[in-house]
């Protein structure tokens, strides 16, 4: 071999070896953020905390809304003629108190709470370990506040659930008793009540504030006999918590509708809202409640589903002079705006919404049947904006001041306290609802407060909790169900949750 050829050969072999260097498999990320490179300043941190509030969309108007209003006596999602909203019987089970661990509403609600809690834990770790954060104590308190809210929901609906506060703890958690959960929520709220922001302003709207924490405490104490019977009643504590809220610059809005209109973020009555936007998960109550042809009738540009409506007796209990009757429920004919004629449903019947809901067709062995498409008063509480295209932006007030007034009134009466003050509080609420001062109470009873809560807080996820506290939840509902078993005071732990975590114990009776 010639010398030059040897050189070439060596060069060739060397370059061939060059390939072995081409084994770099590192990824380059373009449209996502590597965790170690984001969260360096307040703006970035804010955008990372924000998702904890987005989890609140699981409260309303789907999961907990159905669990509360459709298991109490406020609302019903009947199976419509033809079978719409049968959906495996999940709504029948809620209405008749027959639910099981496989019920879809029971499962979805539980999942929205546990995923909310997990996200709070994760973000808690992230903020806690980030050295470059100002206001760390306040931010951490805020995260704990949202987590406490979700535990409050679990405490109320599921009772015995695991308590997880450390995201890095990868052990599958075990069930804690309802009393433990009660104590945990109370301790958390007390720990953060002076650390969270106290302002009531546009800047604090939709965030965990002092007002929100005290309202949660008030709820906790009001229901203490149910949630932690061994601890006894906590009426004074409830009154004290309500007083703390009432000291803050919230307002009973003189115009009742201000808390329910599309731009209700300016309502000073709202303490803790779920903030909705059309482009990112909005308020879907219109879709859920309105008939298909009600959308064109009301000028809405959305596809509607003809689902949930009010229970007849709940509506009938209203005083006809109570303006909240018309403000809360939609009845009557749905007309074609072009012709002025009443629409005809697919079953050849005029589309006139009635208060009555009558089961007529295709009965099951347990008496559940199908109702006409037009049956039932529809939810009319949150204003529908003509031309609405997509989800609505009306925020949902998880807590508002009227609720706090009524809680304090109830606690005062139950504690044998100042009836005059209780009467004044109830009358503040009633005076918005009636034109005539003759409708105001001279002295209120416990039953008056119960009823007032029903009139004021229809559709607002208060029904089940109130009925349990007033001992009416298991009662018969004539025409629908008989007296039901005490196990239904709690929902079961969903089957899917127990499949994924064998350490969870089921609630008694399921």
């Amino acid at each position, binding site marked *: 071999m010639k010398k030059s*050829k040897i050189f*070439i050969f060596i060069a*060739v072999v060397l*370059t061939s070896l*060059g*390939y072995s260097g*081409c084994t770099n*498999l*590192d*990824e*380059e*990320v*373009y*449209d*996502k*953020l*590597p965790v170690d*490179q*984001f969260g360096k300043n307040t703006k970035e941190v*804010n*955008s*990372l905390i*924000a*998702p904890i509030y*987005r989890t609140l969309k699981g409260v309303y108007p789907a999961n907990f809304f159905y669990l509360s209003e459709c298991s109490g006596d406020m609302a019903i999602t009947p199976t419509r003629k*033809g*079978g*719409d*909203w*049968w*959906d*495996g019987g999940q709504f029948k089970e809620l209405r008749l108190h027959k639910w099981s661990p*496989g019920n*879809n509403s029971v499962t979805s609600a539980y999942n929205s709470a546990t995923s909310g809690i*997990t*996200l709070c834990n994760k973000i808690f770790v992230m903020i806690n370990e980030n050295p470059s954060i100002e206001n760390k104590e306040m931010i951490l308190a805020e995260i704990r506040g949202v987590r406490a809210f979700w535990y409050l929901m679990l405490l109320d609906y599921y009772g015995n659930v*695991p308590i*997880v506060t450390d995201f890095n703890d990868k052990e599958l*958690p075990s069930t804690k008793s309802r009393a433990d959960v009660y104590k945990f929520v109370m301790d958390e709220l007390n720990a953060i009540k002076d650390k969270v922001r106290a302002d009531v302003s*546009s800047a604090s709207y*939709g965030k965990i504030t002092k007002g929100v924490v005290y309202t949660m405490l008030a709820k906790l104490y009001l229901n203490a006999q149910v949630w932690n019977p061994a601890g006894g009643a906590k009426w004074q504590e409830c009154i004290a918590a309500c007083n703390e809220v009432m000291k803050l610059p919230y307002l009973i809005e003189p115009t009742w509708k201000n808390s329910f209109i599309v731009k209700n*973020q300016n309502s000073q009555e709202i303490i803790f809202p779920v903030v909705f*936007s*059309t*482009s990112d*998960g909005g308020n879907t109550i219109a879709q859920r409640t309105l008939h298909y*042809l009600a959308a064109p009738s009301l000028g809405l*540009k959305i*596809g509607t*589903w003809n689902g949930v409506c009010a229970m007849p007796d709940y509506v009938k209990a209203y005083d006809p002079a109570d303006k909240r009757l018309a403000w809360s429920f939609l009845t009557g004919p749905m007309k074609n705006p072009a012709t002025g004629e009443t629409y*005809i449903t*697919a079953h*050849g019947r005029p589309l006139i919404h009635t208060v009555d809901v009558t089961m007529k067709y*295709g009965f099951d*062995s347990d008496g559940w049947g*199908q109702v006409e498409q037009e049956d039932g008063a529809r939810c009319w509480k949150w204003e529908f904006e003509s031309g609405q*295209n997509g989800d609505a932006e009306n925020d949902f007030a998880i807590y508002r001041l009227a609720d706090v007034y009524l809680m304090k009134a109830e606690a005062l009466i139950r504690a044998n306290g100042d009836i005059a003050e209780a009467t004044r509080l109830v009358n503040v609420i009633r005076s918005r609802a009636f034109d005539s001062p003759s409708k105001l109470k001279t002295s209120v009873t416990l039953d008056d407060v119960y009823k007032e809560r029903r009139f004021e807080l229809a559709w607002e996820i208060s029904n089940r909790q109130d009925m349990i506290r007033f001992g009416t939840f298991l009662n018969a509902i004539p025409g629908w169900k008989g007296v039901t078993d005490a196990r239904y005071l709690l929902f079961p732990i969903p089957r*899917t*949750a127990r499949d*994924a975590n064998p350490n969870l114990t089921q609630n008694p009776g399921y």
Partner: protein
Amino acid sequence: MKMKALKSSPFRRAGRRAGRILGLVILNFLGWTLLVSAELPLPSDAGRPVVVQQARKVLTGLVTDSNGMPIPGASVVVKGTMVGTITGADGRFTLEVPQDAAVVTVSFVGMKSQDLVLGNQTELKVVMEDETIGLQEIVAVGYGTQTRREISGSVTNVSEKNFNRGVTRTGVDLLKGKVAGLTITNGSGDVTSEQTIRLRGTSSLNASSQPFIVVDGVPGMSLNSVAPQDIESISVLKDASAAAIYGSRSASGVILITTKKGKRDQTSIEYEGYVAVDNVTNKPELLNAAEWRDYASKNNISTTGLDLGGDTDWFGEIMRTGLTHNHSLSMTGGSGSHNYRASISYLDQQGVVNDNVLERYNARLSFNQKAFDDKLDLTFTGVMTQRNYSPSDTRNFVLAYNMIPVYPVKLADGSWYDNQEYDQGNPVRNIEYNSRDNKSNLYFGNIKADLDLFAGMKASLNVLKQRESNDYGQYYDSQTERGRNDIGYAQRNSWMADKQLLETTLNYKKVLENHNMNFLVGYSYEDNYYQSMGAQNRQFVTDLFAYNNLGAGENLRSGDVWSSKNMSKLISFFGRVNYTLMGKYVIAASVRRDGSSKFGKNHRWGTFPSVSAAWHMKEESFLRGVNALDDLKFRIGYGVSGNQDGLSPYLSLPLYGRAGQYYDNGKWYTAYQFDQNENPNLRWEQTSMFNIGLDYSLFKGRINGSIDYYDKNTKDLLYTYSVPQPPYLKGTMMANVGSMNNKGIEFLINGDVVRNGDFRWNASFNIAHNKNEITSLSNDQFTTSAIKTGDAWIRGGSNNTTHIVEEGKEVGTFYGWLCKGIDENGKYIMDDMIDGKAGLTDEDRTYIGSAQPDFTYGLANIINYKNWELNFFFRGVYGNDILNFSKMSYATTQWLPGANVLKEALTIGLKESPRYCSYYIEDGSFLRLDNASLAYNFDTGGKYGINRLRVYLTGQNLFVITKYTGLDPEVNMSGLDPGVEGREFYPKSRTISVGVNLSF
């Protein structure tokens, strides 16, 4: 892994890195070339031909088969020219040739072509020999070719003469039903839909189960990149011992497509064209106006406000006779040291639904040059595919089901009728005014270079740069059902995928007396970049812009503009040894080490070995005397292959992604949230397959075929498993958990039923059985008892699932209530004692069928008589179940009178709400006359320079024999919920086409 600032964009750097590698390789290659060329004399002018005007002579001759029977239609061509003819019915030909013509090539389908050296004779007698199917046939295998004799894995090769005829959209249409174990399913009649291709069953829960496509040695190509008319042959690598050379992506088998190439000394121009008409075979049988009115009057239902006096067949209104035409033109040629082939194909296909079209242009140019005394072989290939297509908006089927026949399409004054009831609206108007247009491009350049280094040693280089892109425009007119709520809705969406590939191999062949050895080593680098962007807007003052002026919309929201980008890399080293001893014993072993960027840092590399052996038993003394037996080959093999296709990148990393918006002090801001439960342990899904087979050939090739048995185990199944929350952040997580088994047997027999001079009948039958079983869904970290999946959405049926994925069951198992019929009260008779307790609950659901067939089979026939050829082909499936979803949704009177139902609703006797149960699970077995084609080859006698003229008439999907009562028993078979004919099922059509093949 880092985010870089814009000025040194990762994209540019990646491009630079690929460039650097390419530069390195070219340098390297040049080096080798230099090394080789150093020993070669330079080309000189000495041997150059001189062109002179030539005299001509006349050749005559007779072409017969080995029995002395004349062969009509055989082609006789002067090698290296376009001078040629075809034999007549008597097998004779006359051809005027240049005086100095040296060689004549005679060829005929199914026979070995012959080169005859012309001396002074002008009268030729040619005896053609049957091409023994099998043994000497050259078959593409991964990274090379082998003769069939040398193959020890399970490989099926289908070449042009056995391809399906008629309307063929992609390469796999050509071999539909022809390969045992390969099922190709068109789940829809939509001309833009993709087929589901499965080889030896489903072997993945999440990642792709589609076989890996290799075109001309370039791995991972799209079927759209090659027009069916450009394909010469297709090899299917069925078992892991054959496929494992493609390592991590070959778990579902490999399909190797070889395109036609230019041939040295053979110049021709070919035209192939056809025109086809499509008519729908079955459309849903809904109540017509008279039946609807009759029902209303018999049941005393008021029709006021509903009966608008129409008599409309809504499905009829949205369907048509589809017209398709295809033209392809190719040129091939070459001489001395180069050859080329250039082709252009055009396909314009109309679906039977009015909004469904596909228009496609394929252009392919490949040029081959030899240099340095034929030691360097260079091929440049450039390919372009453009498609303009509109998939059907299946929403219109739902509307056509629901709209009652007494509604008119248009009112008396000529204006459109429309309606806003649930699932209703005018589908004709939707189709007329709405658009969903795709414009896609695919182009690539490919350089292949083979260099003979020294005796038996060859270095090869394969470089590819490909870009595929799609631009989508959608507009829903403000007056139509689709666009009325948005007052006009427009969207544009585009994506671009770049692929860069570099492969180098070294191949060494050595033949010693009884030893035949072949060594291969190689390196492969591939990166893929994907980017997309899109925007949407609504509320347009005018519909005139359609999707061409998004800014004109008046309702732009947050989230209405988006873009994305990602990348992944795959790097591999591989090697293979083939050894044949005394022509009798064949052993092959291969190993591939693959690294993928998609997996966790410590799990990126995987090794995929295989080994196989074959034994030509006929060569042994104990069989040598058996004259009837031509060959008997026993094969056995085992290999491990992987799967990662269909898996998104970055699943192993903790990342924040956009998570909607948050409200802060009166304004909305973008929120970020963890996108996923990152899984740093993500790794390869692994399939190991054992295969044992026998190839046989009897009576001088008159009967031949093969039998194969395989056992395939897939472990570390990738799937998005449910995980508890807490401790996990998200409820699901991509992980490697379960395992799955597929076992099966495949049988092929092919024979000349009649082989009698000018009458020949060849028949080929294949049948395959596959049994799928999920063997585990749990490991020490995750437990999943069952995955309930599939959406059984009917009105009032939310949160229903149709299928179950469970240990011990096969993928595609239907799971629901067991129904024994409908009682006299119109109620289902459900078995409510499955859980041992009376009362029908979710716990009473059970296994009610399986979408997986017991057998799939195909029977192909080719009958030749003189110039005629008749080709017909049956295809069938046996033992599978189908969920007749349309029947479940619409065979009920519940929706009457306001929504239409199937005619069956009046006779079925159901009076309660429809529920998903076994009542709607039907036997899906079928036998289809898939394709029948009659062709005639003209005796052109070389007139007008025509070598070959062939016309044919083809019918596709001519009839189906089945007990299934829905529209068509062949439905979507992909995913975990196969075997469902949904409400949005696009009906199938029958195709009749007329075509011509012409070559000069």
